[in-house]
């Protein structure tokens, strides 16, 4: 599905300003004050709490296959994760995942 232009033109400025406010928060306005440890602890896990959940349904039920679990995409996802954990290399993991995807698709 294509992105709805109206959605885009609402999301773009709010996301841009919101992201900038996040970056400016302490450096620009709040200054040198400690962050409560509980908040600091929660913030440490924001990215890792969202990104895996965002991709999990797309891995198991890809839109491209009409929601049917696809061995090629599943294998590619697992190889990406394994190579990423083993090598800590983002690019290495992407390449390994891409090669796996096309290798299984064409076999």
């Amino acid at each position, binding site marked *: 599905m294509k992105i709805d232009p109206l959605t885009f033109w609402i999301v773009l400025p709010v996301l841009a300003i919101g992201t900038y406010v996040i*970056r400016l928060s302490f450096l620009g306005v709040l200054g040198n004050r400690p962050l409560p440890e509980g908040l600091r602890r929660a913030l440490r896990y924001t990215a890792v709490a969202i990104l895996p959940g965002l991709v999990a349904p797309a891995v198991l039920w890809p839109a491209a296959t009409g929601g049917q679990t696809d061995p090629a995409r599943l294998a590619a996802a697992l190889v990406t994760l394994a190579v990423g954990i083993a090598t800590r290399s983002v690019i290495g993991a992407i390449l390994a995942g891409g090669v796996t995807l096309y290798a299984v698709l064409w076999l």
Partner: protein
Amino acid sequence: MTPIRSPFLRGCAASAPFVIVVVPFALLFGVVATEAGLNLLQVMLFSLSVFAGASQFAAVQLMQDQAPVLVVLATSLAVNLRMVMYSVAMTPHLGGARFGTRALMAYFLVDQSFAASQMEFERRPDQPLADKVAFFFGTVAPIAPLWFAASFAGAVVGEAIPPEYALDFAVPITFLAICAPMLRSIPHVVAAAVSIIAALLFAGLPYGTGLLLAAVLAMAAGAGAEVALTGKGQAGHED
């Protein structure tokens, strides 16, 4: 090896290795966003004004799934919340600069400039403010222009790729590749596992709200695991 004297150039050198990550990531964003129906102007505005790759991918994915505006915004802003920590961590070192300078540095406060600057300022905390500011801008110099240029190149290439070659799986692979190195402690693994399981369980909830719910649970699980493992948390540990 001759040590580099100029703090700006030392900043450039410190963030140069990130170029190998930033360029393909931005290229891919250009391609994926174009395939999702954005034109060249929209892709460039996106990369210039938001300037935060993971949240840009998340927003494109959710908008493509026709999630409501509020869900798109809540999810992609949550992806960027980690930058509050970056802002806190940079303030003792850069907070003495003029407001205009700080406002500009805030725009350039991305994963790479934070990581490189944090390492430098911890190693040499006593250098003058001007040197720290110069170092910070140095870390941005190799990254930002390439981020914009590669987004542009990706969008141009994306317009030329026929839809039947749609790279539907490029985004999942990229996100998994970004996540894998983040799994550096047991609480991070717990958070990721809860995120995946809850997102799958709640996939049927309307309007992408399942992901938000999963994110809240996963964050709580990560923080809870940290407390359980260390007694009272890893005090003073920066992300």
